[in-house]
């Protein structure tokens, strides 16, 4: 039983996030481990660059300033008083402090050991979310007082309605700033800066005579393109502005805006009347707005990934993304968005891994290292649907090289592939049991060989070829020289054009997977083995849909869309008569992805095998309803590809 002292600590912590998200038991666990530390006015708690302590801090009384010294002058970045949490980097990154902390009053602080909280962050996505938010703002502090904490509590307790999270689900619009501070083409920089300064903003939009946005000037541009270059203040704004500008329309939802900004690493996105830069400017969204509005930031994870060459750090960031994933899934954030974020993070990890491998090997392979190549994801990674770190499927395609270079190129790319895979394994990704990975020499080949592989699969559609086709047809360029992948795509379509019968074989293959429900609407479960009595959601629910979508897209000669649910969206557009079915199928696929990922996170498995009884009644019903489109789709495929008259 907790004693008076522990209770006293609990009572205090309970008032402030993230502690208010903890159950009583967990809170007690934390309270039992804390230290109460006294710092007198003027004392330093830690200094910038010092290695992280084993604990982070909560102010019980007094005040702490987090400061940064610039050119010998100390600037206060944050003021922390009662209930504020700081020094959190120790918890998140175990990296040196980025600011200096000094007591500006006599202060009593609770020091919360990191090891206690590490565990809690794993278990409680709201807590990790909270810290992610603090981390996100680039600061270690999350400001709160009691009233704010109650706000926060409200926010976190009803994720379905709060606006902070609604924006994730794509159902609400983002608040953008307007009117926008702007100047005209032909203005001098001095005029523009005067406006920026009087309005207290860090950027200004350059408009033409029609009030269409032509460019943007930020503080950074002033620094890099004006002052550093020694240009006069009379320089015209168009000389130093960044252009063209990225624009979107007023009805764009959050997911779209956010993904655009992340993909193109934009700090600002302009909103115009019709979404192009040939229409009137109506508002601006900055990445800061986004950070503020969402309280969490994959953008920061992505930034951190790009800034590090430390494999352990990369692995840690990937783990962090998994917590983000857990939070997204629990809060019913649209799979489209979630998959977009996770795919982007995975892609950047691959890109980083390739860079690291190249740094290591390029000097010993002077010529081979100049050969263009493309690293492609296959299977679910290729479809941009891999939420969990289940098996890796990938390959390397490189340019054809002269005979004299071919051995060298082969060994070079094999070394690169091997190192990249080792890094990915270190980041917690699982190897593909079928060895469909770039480090398998078979799947690390010049483009001519790849074209031959695909030609062989298409011309001789035996069982193995079709199996390969299901995996390799979903390739997606992740890093390197994308045109190589595109030229392969063209090759495939011209081959299919020549061998029309291939699609019939492919269709037959798509119907091979057994239906998910038995005659009595019960789940068909595994009959034996380790997974006995479990339902294989991948084989029985997801693969039939993914296979059907791939097949139908091929038959429409549409390429470039890999997501199964996006493929169904496209199909709905292409075949209005089956629109409803395709939209349902896409929704069903999203449901399966979500259930599988949640199951996988919960049990730390691939999530593939589900115990039907472990699902709640509602979930079970949801799952069963989601099976309907499978049956319907398979009927369409059977008729369209005349499979009943077609013997293999």
């Amino acid at each position, binding site marked *: *039983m907790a004693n*008076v*002292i522990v209770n006293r600590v609990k009572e205090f912590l309970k008032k402030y996030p993230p502690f208010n998200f903890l159950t009583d038991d967990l809170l007690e666990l934390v309270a*039992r*481990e804390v*230290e*109460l530390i*006294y710092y007198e006015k003027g004392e330093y708690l830690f200094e910038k660059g010092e290695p992280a302590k084993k604990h982070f801090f909560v102010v019980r*009384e007094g005040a702490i300033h987090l400061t940064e010294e610039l050119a010998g002058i100390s600037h206060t970045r944050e003021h922390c008083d009662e209930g504020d949490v700081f020094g959190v980097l120790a918890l998140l990154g175990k990296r040196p402090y980025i600011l200096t902390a000094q007591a500006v009053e006599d202060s*009593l602080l609770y020091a919360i050991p990191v090891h206690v909280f590490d565990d809690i962050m794993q278990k409680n996505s709201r807590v990790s979310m909270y810290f992610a938010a603090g981390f996100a703002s680039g600061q270690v502090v999350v400001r709160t007082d009691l009233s704010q904490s109650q706000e926060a509590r409200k926010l976190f307790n009803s994720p379905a309605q709060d606006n902070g999270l609604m924006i994730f689900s794509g159902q609400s619009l983002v608040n953008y700033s307007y009117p926008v501070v702007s100047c005209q083409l032909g203005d001098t920089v001095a005029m523009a800066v005067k406006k920026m300064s009087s309005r207290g903003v860090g950027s200004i939009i350059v408009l033409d005579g029609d009030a269409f946005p032509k460019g943007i000037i930020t503080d950074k541009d002033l620094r890099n393109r004006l002052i550093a270059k020694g240009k006069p203040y009379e320089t015209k704004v168009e000389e130093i502005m960044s252009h063209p500008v990225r624009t979107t329309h007023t009805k764009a939802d959050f997911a779209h805006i956010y993904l655009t900004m992340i993909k193109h690493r934009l700090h600002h996105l302009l909103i115009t009347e019709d979404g192009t830069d040939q229409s009137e400017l109506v508002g601006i969204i900055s990445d800061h707005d986004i950070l503020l509005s969402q309280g969490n930031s994959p953008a920061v994870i992505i930034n951190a990934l790009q800034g590090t060459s430390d494999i352990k750090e990369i692995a840690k960031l990937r783990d962090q993304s998994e917590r983000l994933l857990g939070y997204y899934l629990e809060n019913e954030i649209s799979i489209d968005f979630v998959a977009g974020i996770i795919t982007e993070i995975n892609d950047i990890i691959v890109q980083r891994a390739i860079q690291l491998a190249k740094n290591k090997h390029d000097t010993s392979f002077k010529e081979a290292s100049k050969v263009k190549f493309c690293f492609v994801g296959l299977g679910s990674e290729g479809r941009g649907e891999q939420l969990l770190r289940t098996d890796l499927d990938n390959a390397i395609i490189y340019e054809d090289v002269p005979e004299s270079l071919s051995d060298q190129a082969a060994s070079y790319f094999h070394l690169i592939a091997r190192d990249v895979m080792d890094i990915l394994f270190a980041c917690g990704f699982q190897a593909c049991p079928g060895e469909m990975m770039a480090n398998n020499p078979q799947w690390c080949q010049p483009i001519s060989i790849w074209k031959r592989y695909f030609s062989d699969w298409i011309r001789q559609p035996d069982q193995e070829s079709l199996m390969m086709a299901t995996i390799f047809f979903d390739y997606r360029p992740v890093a390197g020289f994308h045109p190589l992948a595109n030229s392969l795509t063209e090759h495939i379509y011209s081959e299919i054009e020549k061998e029309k019968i291939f699609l019939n074989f492919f269709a037959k293959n798509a119907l091979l997977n057994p239906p998910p429900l038995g005659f009595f609407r019960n789940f068909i479960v595994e009959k034996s083995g380790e997974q006995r009595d479990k339902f294989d959601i991948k084989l029985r629910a997801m693969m039939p849909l993914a296979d059907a979508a791939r097949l139908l897209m091929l038959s429409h000669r549409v390429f470039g869309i890999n997501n199964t649910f996006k493929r169904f969206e496209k199909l709905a557009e292409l075949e209005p008569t089956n629109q409803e079915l395709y939209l349902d199928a896409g929704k069903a696929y999203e449901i399966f992805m979500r259930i599988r990922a949640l199951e996988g996170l919960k049990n730390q498995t691939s999530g593939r095998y589900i115990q039907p009884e472990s699902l709640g009644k509602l979930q079970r019903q949801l799952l069963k309803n989601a099976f309907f489109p499978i049956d319907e789709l398979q009927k369409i495929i059977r008729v369209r590809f005349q499979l009943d008259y077609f013997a293999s």
Partner: protein
Amino acid sequence: MRWWKRFTSPVVPVKDFVADYERSFKFKLNKERKINDLTLLVLDTETTGVDIKKDFILSYGSINVQGNSILVGSSKEFYLKSKRLSKETIKVHELVPNQETISREKLIRTFLEDAGNLPIVGHHIGFDLALLEKAGRSFGLRKIKNPVIDTMELGIRLEIGKHADPNRINFSEYSLDSMCIRYGIFPDDRHTAAGDAFLTAQLLIKLLKRARELGILTIGELLDN
């Protein structure tokens, strides 16, 4: 004949934990050690009254302090089994109903194990130690030998000076309540042993900070009244 026996054989059988405790004093505390590097045991007891002869301990609370830091994880709070019912015992149990109780032996054992040869700190600590000694007598405890720091005396020494004239000190200003107010400590959980121990610990880290400023750095200097 019991009383006679007690007087003629003043050595009652010594329990192992008392023997262990006494052995720990073979290692003399180095007076040169910095206060900051030492662990101090802060404690408080609630008793049936203020008479060392008549009264006894109802509850006990303690917590460790290291440098400027209070280790919440080390905190202890005990309520004693008591056969005698008194107005005070009832009051305490009403204050904290349904508290688990422990035996006197368990209390003394835990206290001695926690104390070892650490300096013990308390407000008016002499009285608490006298009652603890009394409670430990039947287990063979003769004397609590730890160095002792009284936060009340330390406060007087730091505020008025070492050689203050006792007649000119207003002792009511050095009660735990008054000192807490003066040092900006909110008096939560007053009159529970653990609550008071926690307050005393907070008072102590503030007093120690002031002591350091006055050049009192080693435990020897701190104990040298």
